[in-house]
């Protein structure tokens, strides 16, 4: 049980901190959230700076253009950038955290050479085309179909919950290349394709969330031709290709968010002290309990990262345990914020009000809490499968 950093890790942290201190003041002002081209430009410029400073693809393997950092170094990177208030990964998210690692693990040399460097440099943006209106929790039931026609696949269908689709160059797309039948279960017969977003037949429509924002989009594909050379992995093997990376989660997925929640919690305490709600024992103790909660979640993050480090990046199922607890804690945080704000919680001018709205997705996105509990029960506890 060692929570201290090695000398090497401390050096890494010090260097990063110094670089952040020198770099962040020179950044341009953040763009308006509704200005998509502005956001892309901002996010990619930041990625380029990271690239130039040697922080791009920190945790990617060297042969993919990365720096092969340990999970601990990655944790330090995420912690320090959040503490320093650096820009978020933003539009680079899918490229850096999913499509890129997938290509790094399963792509050919040519594919890696073509797609990875632009991701690391911030030259190209990726989005994700996995979920469909009728395939959410049950992703294996996806219906977007691709038919081989010469040296291309012809793709028709629709995707949903695609972030940054408006400004993406590429989409990592899952399509059905073999119909489901008695012999072919849903997760067989899926293929992974890199779709150029400017291909004819691709239509993107912003999807408005309950928070009023359009962070996500729907994507409609009408006989879109995707070169067969853009297939990563074998035909019908896309489920495995995808899961390899989906499970390539080294405990660092929520590092920045937990750091941010702890900061929000302190801000809430300060606000409560300022507006008198601190004298309400219920509110005050709720804040105290959240202090215990997020401290524990930070320790749980360190625990999962340590596990991942020892196990060499192979996933544990600690991710589901963490996500269940974290999703709930985060919603609790903003419900408590509402108690601190009192009637002010109805005012969208408070960031906490909009954050409260966004936090409603936490128990749904990337596996509902119900699905996560199934995973914990079946895979971690070994309870018998239901029928």
């Amino acid at each position: 049980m060692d929570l201290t950093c090695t000398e090497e890790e401390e050096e890494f942290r010090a260097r990063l901190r110094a670089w952040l201190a020198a770099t962040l003041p020179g950044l341009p002002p953040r763009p308006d959230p509704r200005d998509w081209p502005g956001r892309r430009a901002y996010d990619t410029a930041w990625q380029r700076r990271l690239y130039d400073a040697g922080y791009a693809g920190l945790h990617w393997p060297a042969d993919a253009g990365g720096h092969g950092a340990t999970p601990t170094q990655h944790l330090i990177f995420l912690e320090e950038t959040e503490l320093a208030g650096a820009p978020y990964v933003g539009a680079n998210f899918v490229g850096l955290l999913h499509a890129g690692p997938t290509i790094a693990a399963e792509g050919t040399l040519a594919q890696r050479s073509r797609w990875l460097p632009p991701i690391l440099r911030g030259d190209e943006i990726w989005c994700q085309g996995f979920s469909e209106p009728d395939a959410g929790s049950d992703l294996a039931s996806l219906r977007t179909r691709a038919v081989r026609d010469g040296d291309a696949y012809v793709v028709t269908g629709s995707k949903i919950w695609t972030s940054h689709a408006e400004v993406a160059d590429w989409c990592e797309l899952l399509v059905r290349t073999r119909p489901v039948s008695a012999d072919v279960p849903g997760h067989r017969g899926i293929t992974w394709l890199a779709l150029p977003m400017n291909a004819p037949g691709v239509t993107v429509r912003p999807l408005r969330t309950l928070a009023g924002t359009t962070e996500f989009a729907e994507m409609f594909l009408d006989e879109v031709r995707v070169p067969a050379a853009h297939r990563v992995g074998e035909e019908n093997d896309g489920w495995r290709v995808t899961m390899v990376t989906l499970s390539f989660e080294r405990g660092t997925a929520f590092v920045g968010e937990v750091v941010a929640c702890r900061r929000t919690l302190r801000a809430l305490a300060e606000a409560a002290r300022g507006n008198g709600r601190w004298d309400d024992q219920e509110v005050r103790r709720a804040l105290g309990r959240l202090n215990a909660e997020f401290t524990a979640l930070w320790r749980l993050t360190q625990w999962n990262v340590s596990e991942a480090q020892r196990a060499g990046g192979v996933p544990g199922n600690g991710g589901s345990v963490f996500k269940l607890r974290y999703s709930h804690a985060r919603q609790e945080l903003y419900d408590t914020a509402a108690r601190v704000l009192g009637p002010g919680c109805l005012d969208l001018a408070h960031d906490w009000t909009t954050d409260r709205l966004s936090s409603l997705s936490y128990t749904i996105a990337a596996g509902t809490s119900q699905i996560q509990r199934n995973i914990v029960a079946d895979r971690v506890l070994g309870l018998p499968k239901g029928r």
Partner: protein
Amino acid sequence: MDFRLTDDQRALQEGVRKLLEGRFGRERLRAAVDGPGAEPVPSLDRALWRELGDAGFFGLRLPERDGGVGLGLPEAVLAFEEAGRALLPGPLVATHLAAGTVPGAATGKTVVARVDGELVEWLDAADHVLGNAAGAVPVRSVDPLTPLHRVPGAAGERGAVTGSGVVTGSGAESGSGAAGGFGAADAVLAALLTAAEQLGSAGRTTEAAVRYAREREQFGRPIGSFQAVKHLCAQMLVRTETARAAVYGAAVTGDAVEIAGAKLLADDAAVRNARDCLQVHGGMGFTWEADVHLHLKRAWTRAERWPAEREAAELLAAALR
């Protein structure tokens, strides 16, 4: 003792539901929500307001000799439950309570808003304001169908209501209390009618969750066949029916403490049911197109009306003797 609805009450319930379905159905609701601009300022539908007045929605409890319908609190609660189901917008409670005192309120000609603590709903649309709204500044309201103003300096603990008074008066006998034309008895009635709206919302989100759970298929079967979803829905019904017993009971007794309890349970049912409904809907529930967020936001808004959870709990504790 027969706590169930009388045939007349059932007819009233059905009548209001039909009226609202016809005049403020789903298309009308979405049109109001999806107006032009990112955050359209909702406008009050004056024609609908008049129609509500004609139907007796506001004058429900006024004596017939004063042009009212001459019914009681239970009937008013049933009508407001339907309004909550339909997400009917507007300062319904204030206008209803002003029906006996503010000319034109009963007929729906005059729209009445009221100051409740530091918040006023629908101030710009109002012809008449109960309470002192001087210096009110607009708020970017979380509920797209409830414009809000904040009255600076009006914060602090609200509600002079303590003890266990019983309110039975019609609008005609109240409305002349201490706080700017909105007395303690009116505050209690407002709490009850708000609770009724919350009850309607809780019932509506339960139905919506059940319907979606029956239709939506994942893993080759309706998600409503999974115990996790079944049990979410079952708990929604339990919350609704408990709140219903509390609200109807409070309507019959008119007891101020019982009304505070009804508001507390109805607030809880409305907010938690909306959240569970959202969870059952999964990603679709997170979209603007689904109605569930409208229920949640309205439920949050109504929960802030007096008495808020904290205030209700204190009132209920103080009454334990």
